[in-house]
């Protein structure tokens, strides 16, 4: 299950999706909106996305995780649009027979999401707003 949605993310639904009697370990990662970033007081985040391509990239990340580790299932949902403080912008759930695989694949997924999935975060802070990533001029991952 790889999804880009404007609705609040249902963690329990992702966990249910990866639950499997063959797999004794589920690792999840939840990214939530934080009230500060680089000295700025954050009021909210607002995500833009290229939804069809983002879902395709999420699916690709899931498939690569399946190749790299012995895992049973992966589910990833990324929220777009405005996301209030403490709400989840992204949830990843990975199940595996053994916890080491579940943890490593979950960690891999969030690192990859931040590198390649066409989703953009606009930070609305006290005194302005900024598209994260684009303002920094930081080099992109080589392709």
């Amino acid at each position: 299950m790889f999804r880009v949605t404007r609705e609040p993310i249902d963690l329990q639904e992702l966990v249910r999706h990866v639950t499997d009697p063959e797999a004794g370990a589920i690792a999840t990662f939840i990214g939530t909106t934080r009230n500060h970033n680089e000295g700025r007081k954050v009021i909210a985040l607002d995500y833009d996305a290229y939804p069809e391509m983002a879902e395709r990239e999420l699916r690709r990340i899931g498939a690569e995780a399946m190749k790299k580790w012995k895992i049973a299932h992966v589910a990833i949902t990324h929220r777009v649009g405005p996301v209030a403080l403490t709400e989840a912008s992204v949830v990843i759930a990975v199940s595996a027979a053994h916890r080491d695989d579940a943890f490593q694949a979950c960690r891999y997924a969030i690192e990859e999401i931040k590198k390649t999935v066409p989703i953009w975060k606009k930070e609305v802070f006290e005194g302005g707003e900024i598209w994260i990533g684009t303002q920094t001029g930081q080099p992109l991952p080589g392709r």
Partner: protein
Amino acid sequence: MKVKVKFFAMLRERAGTGEAVIDIEAGATIGALWEALKKNYPKLAPVETRLLYAVNQNYVKADHALKENDEVAFIPPVSGG
């Protein structure tokens, strides 16, 4: 030929639209399309951030040759998560 161009995030704001149909010479590269767009949408010209290119929802290189009806996107540095 016509291609469909998608703008996101900062580019969406600067172009003033999320989508446009653009007429360009057959066989143009996606890099050449970007140069053409900067003339159609002057606010795109000062964009200095590095962009990635996608055609039909797959990343491609700047020298990728476009085809009629391709869905083209310019991808500023992503910041999901």
